[in-house]
């Protein structure tokens, strides 16, 4: 596919009819430098604006949030929302719960996903059906399976525990992890593994000592993505957890509701408190992450 047949027909290099169609404007974007830069800057602003708005909201007086939609605080900047956010709701506990769930479930996902993917690709285990099944599982809307999942978690007596949520997140994120790791393993030359086998390595040893070190960036990227999926997950956490000891952060910030009304300021502060650690993680691992997303994501 990558062989472009049109390379041969370059003689007709310039096309005659240039109508002012979509293509015309696309051309302008693609090949006009100022237009391109403007486009990118708009994109950048569009991404940042809502997040900036939430930050500003967290610094406004509650009365100002109710009365004005201006981006910047007009009155004095206040920290009252931040103080209240941490005082009224056990925010640190929620953050801790989320961290534990996200970290442990991510490690479990990787431990299960790497050997599985390796086996599927190198030994064709499960034929065409198994990979299709994995992707098919990812298609299922979570709401559809929530009742039976709840019943099963209850059966093993793990409702209202972090362990229960960890298990569910592990299972829910496994398909996407397999899907992401796939192309990393494909990229490893078979010869390396064959050499390992000749050296007397077992298949497990080959995986552990040859394959895993080679795909480490990919595993890391996959790990960060499942970490974040787990961190953001709402529906299962809503159903499976009850109190402070197992509620995660997304459930926790939806608790900032006073009598008959949302506390937008406090919610903003709390949301930021949870988002910022994730953002830092993103910045630290962005290189691996982008590669991981992109290389795993697209296979023609």
């Amino acid at each position, binding site marked *: 596919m990558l062989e472009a047949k049109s390379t041969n027909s370059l003689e007709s290099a310039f096309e005659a009819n240039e109508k002012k169609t979509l293509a015309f404007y696309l051309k302008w974007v693609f090949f006009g430098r100022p237009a391109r830069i403007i486009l990118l800057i708009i994109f950048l602003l569009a991404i940042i604006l809502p997040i900036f708005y939430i930050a500003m909201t967290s610094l406004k007086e509650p009365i100002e949030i109710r009365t004005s*939609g201006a981006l910047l605080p007009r009155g004095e900047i206040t920290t009252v929302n931040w103080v209240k956010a941490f005082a009224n709701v056990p925010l640190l506990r929620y953050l801790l719960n989320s961290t534990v769930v996200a970290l442990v479930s991510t490690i479990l996902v990787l431990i299960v996903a790497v050997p599985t993917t390796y*086996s599927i690709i190198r030994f064709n285990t499960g034929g065409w059906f198994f990979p299709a099944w994995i992707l098919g599982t990812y298609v299922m*809307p979570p709401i*559809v*399976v929530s009742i039976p999942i709840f019943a099963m978690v209850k059966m093993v007596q793990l409702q209202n525990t972090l362990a229960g949520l960890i298990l569910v997140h592990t299972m829910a994120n496994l398909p996407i992890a397999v899907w992401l790791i796939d192309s990393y393993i494909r990229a490893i030359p078979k010869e390396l593994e064959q050499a390992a086998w000749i050296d007397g390595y077992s298949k497990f040893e080959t995986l552990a000592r040859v394959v895993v070190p080679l795909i480490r960036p990919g595993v890391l990227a996959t790990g960060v993505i499942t970490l974040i999926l787990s*961190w953001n997950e709402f529906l299962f956490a809503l159903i499976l957890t009850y109190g402070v000891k197992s509620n995660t952060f997304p459930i926790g910030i939806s608790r900032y509701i006073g009598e008959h009304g949302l506390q937008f300021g406090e919610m903003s502060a709390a949301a930021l408190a949870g*988002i910022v650690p994730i953002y830092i993680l993103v910045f630290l691992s962005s290189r691996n992450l982008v590669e991981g997303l992109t290389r795993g*994501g697209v296979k023609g």
Partner: protein
Amino acid sequence: MNATIEKHTPKLMVLPTFLILLIISLVPLIYILSISLTNSTISKPFTDFVWFENYKKAFTDEVFGTSLVNTLVFAFSVTTIQTFFGFLLAYAMQQERKLGGVMRTLALLPLFTPPVAIAMIWRLIYDPNQGLLNYYLMKWGLVSGVIPFLGDKRLALPSIMLADIWQWTPFCFLLCLAALQSLPKDPFEAAMVDGASGWYVFKRLTLPMVAPQIIVIFLFRLLIALKVFDLVYMLTFGGPGNSTQVASFYIYRVSFKQFQTGYGGALSILVLILISVLATLLTKGRETILKRIE
């Protein structure tokens, strides 16, 4: 002994995944399938066997019909827009390498913001009387009266789409970027030597070469978009009227608000069938498109 283990190692490697798939897909599927044939409520599952009554009911359920249409409109619209802009931006960025690093990192932020927080931000932005959008629209004199983005039946679904586009365009952007970066360099260099115009190279080289990958991105994103739930749950609850009623949310309502788990099960099965058929058709369609490109 060792030889036996060695022989079955590949199977051992997939065993945990196999078990997990059973737990998260097959068991629920059988559960839902059997419950959908009964008139179950939440506290009395698997009682009152009624065969296909629930399915019959679903076919005459107007709200369910509306929710399916809304789901499809939503999923196809956002996916098309996101893939288009994602690609446009990725292509533009590939030409501007200096901006690249910062952009790539910042583009990740919306993806990693919890949906709860995203919904809260957009609720504040859309609010007619104390929200950002109306504030500036009014201030700059662009509109004469406030616009009720989430309260107007024609605007509510597009407004939810906009929030979704904000969240997911970066995702498509990153995948498109990778697709572009994975292209081989040789044909492009040859074209340069031949003095082809940028537009010509784009149309005849880039586009055909990345098309298969773009289609994969489109499909993957579409499958996720069909599951939309969070934004509807937190922004409109399906209203005004049924203008933002989507399939996942309707199933939630039937199963967890009305506690008719039997009927909810039937709706779930129908949605699953629809998504599977759609996925198959699109995969087939993709092959046809690929053939035509070649």
